[in-house]
């Protein structure tokens, strides 16, 4: 029997809007030294809390590019952040991203959060295609994404980190593939369920 990846993801994580009480935690994540590794850029400015809150609130006002807190289902623990950039409703595509707190990265939660986000985008915005990108310095998501999504580009030496330039991989997921369940089955095979 094939288990739906969407239902598995629903059992693991919940996405909810960002609230004011989350700002401190997001600020702490933003100050993580390895954030550059995950987001493929070392040029994240060092901000005061007030500046950070001002920028975050500006970002959260962008209704077309939602930003969610990822919560662990059951315990309600806040474990990460997920969102989109560059939603294009005319052409039906968007760029999706997920950030997880360090202690949750080696488990299934990242994939589950991305699945929930993609499910939301395909249903709510009627998109045809969702992109995601990851750099070769991100050991947590590169291998699973190579199995679960279509690799559409490799931008060589795209970003600099720790004294050298690294490649950036562009992946895409099509709604038709998603509906047919091909991607969902591949995704299930990428990581073990932590429970």
């Amino acid at each position, binding site marked *: 029997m094939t288990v739906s990846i969407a239902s598995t993801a629903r059992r693991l994580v919940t996405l909810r809007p960002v609230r004011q009480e989350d700002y401190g935690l997001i600020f702490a994540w933003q100050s993580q030294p390895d954030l550059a590794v995950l987001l493929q850029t070392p040029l994240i400015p060092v901000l005061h809390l007030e500046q950070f809150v001002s920028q975050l609130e500006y970002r959260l006002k962008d209704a077309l590019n939602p930003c969610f807190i990822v919560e662990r289902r059951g315990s309600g623990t806040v474990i990460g952040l997920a969102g989109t950039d560059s939603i294009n409703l*005319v*052409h*039906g595509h968007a760029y999706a991203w997920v950030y997880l707190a360090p202690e949750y990265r080696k488990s299934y939660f990242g994939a589950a959060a991305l699945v929930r986000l993609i499910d939301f985008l395909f249903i709510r915005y009627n998109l045809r*295609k969702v*992109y995601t990108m990851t750099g070769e310095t991100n050991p947590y998501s590169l291998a699973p994404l190579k199995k679960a999504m279509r690799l*559409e*580009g490799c931008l*060589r*030496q*795209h970003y600099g980190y720790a004294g050298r330039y690294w490649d950036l991989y562009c992946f895409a997921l099509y709604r038709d593939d998603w509906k047919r369940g091909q991607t969902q089955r591949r995704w299930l095979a990428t990581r073990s369920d932590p429970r």
Partner: protein
Amino acid sequence: MRVGAEAPWRITSGEPRCVATGKEFRLESASQLAYLRAVQMLAPGGLFGTLVALRPVRPDDYRLLDQWIVEASSPFWTSLPFTFYSYKQYVESVASKGLTQFASIVLDRTSEAPIGLIRISSLDTGQGHATIETFMADEYRPKRHGFHAFCLLVDYLMEALNLRKVYAATHEGFDHLGLGEWPDFFQEEARFPEHLLFRGTLVELRLLALYAERWRELRKLVWTEVQGGSSPRDAQSRA
């Protein structure tokens, strides 16, 4: 490369002001000012070649841009706003984003008429790369004008802003660059099938990359054609 007097952004004693919109650009930090000064150098008054010249977009271009947008003869326009007013808003929003995007009008040197638009999106001076999109009016598409405009801009980005890599975004079936003579000019690094919906058809977006080392090899070959003579840098190196 010749530098003219008119800059798209003027930084004087007061707040910098966008020449195109007349709107003030409010600076929030010293680094933003430094960044703006750097980007102000992006086509400061224009870049000039034998066939084409590049100059900043001005309000009197909006009517023509509107016409190009409405005719929409290329998928290029589908990533830009739809109308005159929204194009004006687009120019203003570019200012508010700290100028990571930039658009120049391509002029025909013979008639001095606007014949296209060349746009830089996602300029990242820190990581050293930018993406260039080129649109040429239909009658100029089979000619070399798009290629010349591209070379002028690439040379500026590589030499003045010290970028190490430039991406060219092109759409399947719409070769605005006219690269026929230089098939190995770029390395293709990404193909995004079904990326755009254009006239009822899903069109593929291709991302081509040109590295600074490759540009410096090719520059000796193409510069005479584009610039009609040796560049100041070549003259300097010979001296």
